[in-house]
């Protein structure tokens, strides 16, 4: 599960993965504070600890690939290239947000980036991903669809129905399970008779691999491999990203279901620390490089907050827009 393979970790490449993770981390930490300041409301699910998955996956995908995400999707959106300004403004509920203030944290969209949304119904995105991949296949495109979901989603019927359909129809679909070991307060082994998610996928006759989701490079490598096979017509695959969420499930979670020690142990092998240590050890990065990336990330977040603050609210007179398609002449 380490980045062995034929891939060499270059300075440029390593710094890019780290840069993406630092942007996400800075964004999430700031969002946490902004929630306390009541600038952000509703449900807020932070991605701290899971950054390597978003950074690695997006690095390996192409712009024309379609993406379906969950309510814990800030990292996916940012790594995909949706501007931080637009994502932050969405969290503020502003007109300039990537969903014009109607979606909020759980519903980020960007059609141009082929980002088909944060979906707040657990497993609700999987069937949509099947359809996107079907459209790709029927239109003879070489693109694929990547679909994110959590370990909790594996218990839903929609997971099983979607895996079967995708495999039956040999669709270009990459299922990416972000297994952070908990669905809210329910640990995987308290929800699943079979806790190895790859076993379930294999039962639907698709290739399935467990990946160290704390290692951005390993994630990227696994996605690149899977994507190559999918584009060659191999049909769907599933990658189980073994990761961990450092913060609470949402802002209303007292975390009675896990020990502090467990969280701390995972933090020690966090995706940012581990890549930083590795790049330094390989002589590919200096402390100054790290400091610069961190400063740049902070500055980008600062700009995004300023943008969100100064952006206008959607006028109430526009409330009923977009319920039906507005045809562009």
């Amino acid at each position, binding site marked *: 599960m380490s980045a062995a393979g034929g891939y060499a970790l270059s300075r440029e490449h390593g710094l890019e993965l780290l840069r993406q993770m630092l942007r996400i981390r800075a964004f999430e930490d700031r969002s946490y504070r902004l929630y306390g300041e009541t600038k952000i409301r509703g449900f807020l699910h932070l991605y701290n600890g899971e950054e390597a998955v978003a950074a690695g996956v997006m690095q390996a995908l192409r712009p024309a690939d379609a993406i379906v995400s969950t309510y814990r999707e800030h990292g996916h959106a940012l790594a995909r290239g949706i501007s931080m300004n637009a994502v932050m403004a969405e969290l503020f509920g502003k007109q300039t947000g990537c969903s014009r203030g109607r979606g*909020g944290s759980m519903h980020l969209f960007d059609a141009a980036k082929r980002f088909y949304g944060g979906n707040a119904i*657990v497993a609700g995105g999987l069937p949509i991903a099947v359809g996107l991949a079907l459209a790709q296949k029927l239109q003879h495109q070489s693109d694929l669809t990547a679909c994110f979901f959590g370990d909790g*989603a594996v*218990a839903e019927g929609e997971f099983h129905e979607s895996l079967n359909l995708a495999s039956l129809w040999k669709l270009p679909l990459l299922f990416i399970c972000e297994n952070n070991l908990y669905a809210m307060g*329910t640990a995987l082994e308290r929800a699943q008779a079979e806790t190895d998610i790859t076993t379930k996928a294999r039962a639907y006759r698709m290739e399935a691999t467990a990946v160290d989701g704390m290692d951005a490079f390993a994630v990227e490598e696994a996605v690149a491999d899977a994507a190559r096979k999918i584009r060659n017509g191999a049909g769907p695959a599933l990658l189980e990203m073994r990761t961990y969420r450092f913060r609470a499930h949402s802002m209303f979670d007292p975390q009675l279901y896990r020990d502090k020690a467990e969280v701390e142990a995972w933090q020690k092998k966090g995706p940012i620390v581990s890549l930083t240590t590795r790049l330094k050890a390989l002589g590919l990065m200096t402390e100054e490089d790290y400091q610069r990336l961190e400063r740049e990330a902070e500055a980008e977040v600062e700009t995004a907050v300023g943008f969100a603050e100064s952006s206008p609210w959607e006028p109430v007179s526009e409330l009923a827009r977009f319920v039906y398609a507005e045809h562009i002449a």
Partner: protein
Amino acid sequence: MRIAYRDAVREAIRDALKADPRVFLMGEDVGRYGGSYAVSKGLLEEFGPQRIRDTPLSESAFVGAGIGAALGGLRPIVEIMTVNFSLLALDQIVNNAATLSHMSGGQLSVPLVIRLATGAGRQLGAQHSHSLEGWYAHIPGLRIAVPATLDDARRMLAAALASPDPVLLFEHLYLYNMEGELTPGLERVDLEHAAIRRAGRDVTLITYGWSLYKCLAAAATLAQEGIDAEVLDLRALRPLDDAAIMASVRRTRRAVIVDEGWRSGSLSAEVATRIVEQAFYDLDAPVARVCTAEVPVPYAKHLEAAALPSPETIAAAVRNLLTSGAGG
């Protein structure tokens, strides 16, 4: 003694678990996590994992299992975290729970209670802000009740468990933090009767759930203008208490229905139609409605507020009715 709504529901569940060994609670994160709205906090420690059962994220399966357990002689309380996720269990509720009694010629009954959080107002976005109780009220075979007051939060569950039929209890998520006093000596409530929460002469505000408090606020404002509004809390959406609705409307001769559901094909449409069918000649004005704007509920605070009924829009609808005699 002051009590919060969520604690009143928890006390009701505790009572039920103590009173009847056939009762158990099942749902997502009801145990270890303590309930997503902290309703079931502490119950796992008190009653153990056999009776406080955490389920995986499998709404269709655990609601169906509730139906089966009820058929098998138990008295399950199934918690669906919110009405939004009940859509994944719709098949079990509509095709099984609602039909088995009738379809079996009365041989079977499904004494199942489903509790669901419902409603908007917390900026949770379209997928987490549905008010679909009116939909469920469309289905013969189900009983639908909405505890809006602390007394009902405390007492409705026992009535629901006593029913041989499937009962859905809708708890508005805005009410969980509401605190107040229980009525001393009130030990029993029913699932059939509407209740007048404020008596008045000029107009009847017909409502349920969180909207009850918006209606009471509107009535307080209107009182300062010399308009005396009656507020009727439906409590049960199926069966509807036609007698109470008509009695009130015949007295006040005007009705405004306030419903957090959307207007088209809604519970408010049903109530309005019944008034027209049964009390048309007693009316001095057309029936009016205040409902949620017909949009998926948006995230941004000001847009969400504009979409939902408010004391202001309710009061305006009443004024409109009294001055122009036209519907709002």
